[in-house]
């Protein structure tokens, strides 16, 4: 399985990848994008099985990326990993087609709860 981790912070991408491994998802291909625009392009080029994305990023935000993907016909499973988890954001994420929203700070159990059933 190929997982695209998208965050403008390299540090946070490393933490997300580390947490994936701690949660037991350690035998998957991980690719990375620095913003929503790059993620959008990589979904087309790399065909990931799952996108984990920050919300608040320069160039193109995570929600704009998700909306652009759905508008282009892509149905790639998409989940947010973001520093905010307000009810409004969760609703907007769900309406745009996200399957979950993990709010930072998180731990491996948070990842397991969100990803079990999504990652085989």
């Amino acid at each position, binding site marked *: 399985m190929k997982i695209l981790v998208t965050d*403008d*912070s*390299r*540090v*946070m991408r*490393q*933490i997300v990848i*580390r947490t994936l491994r701690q949660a037991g998802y350690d035998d998957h291909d991980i690719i990375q994008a620095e913003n929503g625009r790059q993620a959008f392009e990589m979904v087309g080029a790399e065909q990931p099985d799952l996108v984990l994305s920050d*919300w*608040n*990023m*320069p160039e193109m*935000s995570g929600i704009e990326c998700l909306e652009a993907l759905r508008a282009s016909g892509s149905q790639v499973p998409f989940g947010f990993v*973001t*520093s*905010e*988890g*307000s009810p*409004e*954001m969760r609703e*907007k994420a769900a309406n745009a087609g996200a399957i979950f929203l993990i*709010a*930072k*700070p*998180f*731990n491996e159990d948070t990842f397991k709860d969100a990803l079990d059933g999504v990652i085989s």
Partner: protein
Amino acid sequence: MTLSAAQPITELLDAETVQSIADEVWPSLVGDGEAFLPVPVPPPAELVSAWVDIIGPWTGSVVLTCAPATAEALTESVLMTRPPTVVDDEDVADALGELANVLGGNIKSVLPGESRLGLPQIGSAPSRGRLDDVCSLVGQWRGNFLTITVQGAIAAPHAERNEVPL
């Protein structure tokens, strides 16, 4: 509840809430068993800050301030680096900014009304607004001085390029 743009942060947030957010952020980001302790120690002469802006019914910044050496140690802890691996300035800016970002995102979520969060910035802390519009938590991590300050803006900032809509 009636909201006013002039409502100071001290009426919206207390230090205990900031502490409870830090209690969740430190073990998650800085490392297992790591803690932000509300025990004041003397501030160092040289300081570096990372912050995010909150724009909404309350407008201001969430600022994390410490000595450059503490910022470097925090980065090493966040990245779990071990000698001889060293962190560079870009790593330090990224890690400190992300800590401020996660603190800011969680503080935003306990404020009333709908707000937007800016992207992390690093440097000298932004100027404070009204004296009563500041909620500051002074503490330490591994004996190093740190402050988390939630401070109102001098004036409502214009929409910034790095501001991302909800």
